[in-house]
Each structure stands twice: as C-alpha cells, then as structure tokens.
C-alpha cells in the first residue's frame, strides 16, 4: 500500500498528492511533511548536504516503518520519498504523506513516519562548508526522544 522511493531527483509534492488520491473518495485527511536542507548547521553556514544510504536495506527499512504506521492507524495510503546524493540549501530531502479517513490519524501517522524515518532508516548526512571542510552529522538525542514517544 505504501509508495516508497529513494531517488536523487527532486519530487513534485502536488503530483504525489494526486497519485495518492486518484480514483478514491474515502480519504478524509491527508498529512504532509517535507524536510528541506537548512542553510546553517550549529550556527555555521553550509554549502551543501550529501545523503548516503545503504541501498540493499533502505527500502526494506522504510517498508517496515510504513507497516508499523499501518498497524497503529487506519491508513488508506502513504508515500515516503527520500532523496540521496548532493543537495543544496533549500532543496527538498524527504516527503511523507499519510492518507486516512480521519484528520487525527493522518497527522499522527505523518509525525510517526518522519520520526521513525530519522531514527530507523539507513541514511547518513554529511555537511559541506564554504571553506571546503566536511563533517558527518551526529545523531541527535532529540530525534531519538521524538521517535521513542511513539513506542
């Protein structure tokens, strides 16, 4: 049921909404989260962000996260798209859409899906700075806390 993709190309949010809803009128609420590349990291300007992943595992891990959401909420469909490769500030990184008959389930499932994607899918971010240095992003306790509130 979930539409899961890992890609270097950008995504079209409107087209993804339309694809999720086409031919059906049973959806009462659609939750949406878009993650984008912020131009600063811990107060420093960044020039780019590079996303690495574990190709053989990524889509399986995202599928398990979608199944976990489907077990918790009444979902009629969801879309998880994560970009990889080199991205510039302002560019899209990740799209989460969750469709449900009801608003609260759509919103809660969207929050759950992005929280678990951040902590349970094998992606790693590396920040590039204008002086040419690069740094791997460290995992964040706040992200782990956000994910664990759904336990």
């Amino acid at each position, binding site marked *: 049921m979930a539409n899961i993709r890992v890609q270097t190309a950008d995504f079209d949010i409107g087209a993804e909404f339309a694809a999720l809803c086409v031919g059906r009128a049973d959806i009462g609420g659609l939750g949406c989260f878009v*993650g984008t590349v912020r131009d600063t990291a811990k107060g420093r300007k960044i020039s780019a962000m590079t*996303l*690495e*992943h*574990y190709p*053989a*595992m990524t889509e*399986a*891990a995202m599928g398990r996260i979608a199944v976990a959401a489907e077990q918790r909420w009444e979902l009629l469909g969801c879309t998880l798209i*994560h970009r990889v490769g080199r991205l510039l500030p302002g560019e899209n*990184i*990740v799209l989460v859409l969750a469709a449900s008959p009801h608003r609260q389930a759509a919103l809660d499932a969207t929050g759950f899906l*992005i929280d678990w*994607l*951040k*902590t*349970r*899918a*094998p*992606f*790693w*971010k*590396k920040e590039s700075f204008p002086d040419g240095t690069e740094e*791997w*992003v*460290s*995992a*964040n306790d706040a*992200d782990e806390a956000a994910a664990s509130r759904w336990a």
Partner: protein
Amino acid sequence: MRNVKLLYFAWLRERIGVAEEDLAVPDGVITIADLIAWLRLRSAGHLAAFATTTSLRCAVNQDFATPETLIATGDEIAFFPPVTGG
C-alpha cells in the same frame, strides 16, 4: 572459517578506507561483538573505526542487529554510525 560480506558506511567507511570486504572469519568469532573485536586487529583504520562501540550500529542481512547477534556463513554484515536521515 565462515565467509561473510562486510559493508561500511559514512565515517566508518572513510576510516577503514574501503566500502566492503569479503572475509573468512575464524570459527571462534561467533557474535557481532566477537567480530568487532576481531576486526579491530585488521588495520589501524579498522581500529579507528571500531575504537568505541557507543556510536556504532550494525545490520545483518539488511535488518538491525545487536552485539549478541550470531554470524552465519553468507551473511551480509553492515556497520555504520547512528542514522541521520529525514
């Protein structure tokens, strides 16, 4: 000996200097924790990558594993830092 495929990601790959290696693991290396201890002896890069295990994660055959997970012939074993996607 058991043959396994090892994969490294993010800064583990950079410290070790290769993205993957096929290794024959001695019979005494039974768990992921044993494997980490054995890998530390392979090179200075391996030692640097596996110096501490607090920020180390592992997957066996594309599913998250723990230090106690057992190793079998043919396993694909990936080591990486805590994930930072989203």
